[in-house]
């Protein structure tokens, strides 16, 4: 089976007059279809750069990024990108905010619009079509932002710390919401976060990045009993804390070799 997304030996540097900053070095990994992958790492490890590369906004200096076997380019329709903040535009209503992507891609026809309305209905925004974003709660705003991304029917979702701007309580429930939406629609997703417990609670697999230049330091496959996927419920299992501790060790020890379980999983 070919993976949904394949990253092979990618390097990326930023160039300024002061010099060159290596952001990512020799990154290789893959994501299978329907998989929920989390990428964790300290701030400044090039997480956002990685997502920009995956979505085709940036072009790698070295290496290849293949999406369904073809190289990604700016504006490929199969990749949806959810930014850190919701960026709902205050001068638009909720409905015209979530159909922004359709407008930009000239797909704002009745058929697509009714799909968007269905999404709004099923995620609790039915009575907010004509509301302005400032009337929504933090969780509703994130859902609206997700619907805006889903409206373009992407196969792969890139989530750049989408919960980091929320307060802790909202954050837990929105994370639960969003991940159940993604899983029920069988989307492939890559979530970037610096919150280890969020990663353990949501992911099927976790990649650990080191700080600048970002390299992949370890990998952890997450499996809960009964194939539990709800982030809130996962937090009640004893496996939750053991996975957390493993992750902690991978991040803490610079030369992590044999941290728990199968050493093959650590590259």
């Amino acid at each position, binding site marked *: 089976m070919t993976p949904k997304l394949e990253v092979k030996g990618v390097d990326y540097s930023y160039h300024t007059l002061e010099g060159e900053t290596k952001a990512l070095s020799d990154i290789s990994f893959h994501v299978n279809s329907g998989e929920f992958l989390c990428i964790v790492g300290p701030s400044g490890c090039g997480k956002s750069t990685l997502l920009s590369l995956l979505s085709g906004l940036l072009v790698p200096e070295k290496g290849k990024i293949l999406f369904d076997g073809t190289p990604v380019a700016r504006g490929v329709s199969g990749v949806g990108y959810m930014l850190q903040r919701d960026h709902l*535009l205050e001068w638009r209503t909720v409905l015209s905010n979530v159909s922004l992507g359709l407008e930009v891609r000239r797909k704002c026809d009745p058929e697509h619009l009714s799909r968007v309305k269905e999404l709004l209905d099923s995620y609790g925004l039915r009575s907010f079509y004509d509301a302005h974003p400032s009337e929504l709660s933090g969780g509703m705003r994130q859902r609206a932002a997700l619907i805006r991304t889903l409206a373009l029917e992407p196969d792969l979702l890139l989530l750049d710390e989408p919960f980091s701007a929320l307060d802790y309580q909202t954050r837990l429930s929105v994370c639960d919401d969003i991940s159940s939406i993604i899983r029920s629609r069988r989307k492939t997703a890559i979530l970037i976060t610096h919150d280890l417990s969020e990663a353990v609670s949501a992911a099927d697999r976790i990649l650990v990045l080191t700080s600048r230049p970002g390299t992949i330091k370890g990998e952890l496959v997450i499996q809960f009993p009964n194939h539990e996927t709800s982030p809130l419920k996962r937090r009640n299992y004893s496996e939750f804390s053991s996975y957390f501790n493993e992750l902690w060790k991978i991040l803490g020890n610079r030369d992590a070799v044999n941290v728990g379980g199968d050493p093959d999983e650590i590259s």
Partner: protein
Amino acid sequence: MLEVIPMKFHNVTSFILHRHRAVIPAADLTFSSAQCRYLEQERRIRRQIFFCRVLFLVLFLFFWEIGARLGILNDFIFSSPSRVLSCFLSMAADRTIFYHMGITILETLFSFFLVTGIGIFGAVALWSSRRLAKILEPYLVMLNSLPKSALAPVLIVWLGNNMKTIITAAISVAVFGSILTLYNGFLSMDPDQIRLIYTLGGKRKDVLTKILLPGSVPLIISNMKVNIGLCLVGVIIGEFLSAQAGLGFLIIYGSQVFKLDLVIMSIVILCILSAILYQAVAVLEKRCGR
């Protein structure tokens, strides 16, 4: 610094407007007594402010008139409220004053719309080519800080003794600042909102139509408020030099023939006119404001 001032100006203005426009709700049985006391006090303060404003104007006119009547002020030079009024009434009788006012308003509005249009177009042009912006930047800054009244005599020679000169003078006063302010406004847009358009598969054109222009509406309107005043300045400069009609013409003509009543009256009308034009844009702002 140029880009910052109009925005602050905009904020302060809307703040003041907002404070003044906020309607005090009528007393209601559901209000607590403390709330009623607060509303009553707020009402009293507003009455006092309004009273003091009127009083200030009345006292000013009163002492001006009395001073002129008693000979403390030379009313040949300083005129007086009654002389200004009678001058206005005599010119209103044969309608000449409305003709002059009409000319000035027409010229101001015409140059104002042109400045607004050229300002937005120029800012979009600069934004769409960073290289063009870099190349033109020093020239725009220089033209913006040049005292435009220095251009007026040249304009007369080039364009002739007519309305073209006046409107060109008015545009030259406001247009460079307008372009720079809007361009800097475009540049200070949230880069993540622009990224959003790219992540949705949009092009640069979509960034312009979906983010920059709608997001700049408050800035464009606050810039219009500055422009309407500057256009009036430009029109008066132009009329000083080359006009057969208009309030600027009346001021220059009046001072040359020592009819100071005419000069003072024209200045008073200009005061009122500029306030009305400014308020007209402010009303537009309220309509568009959210």
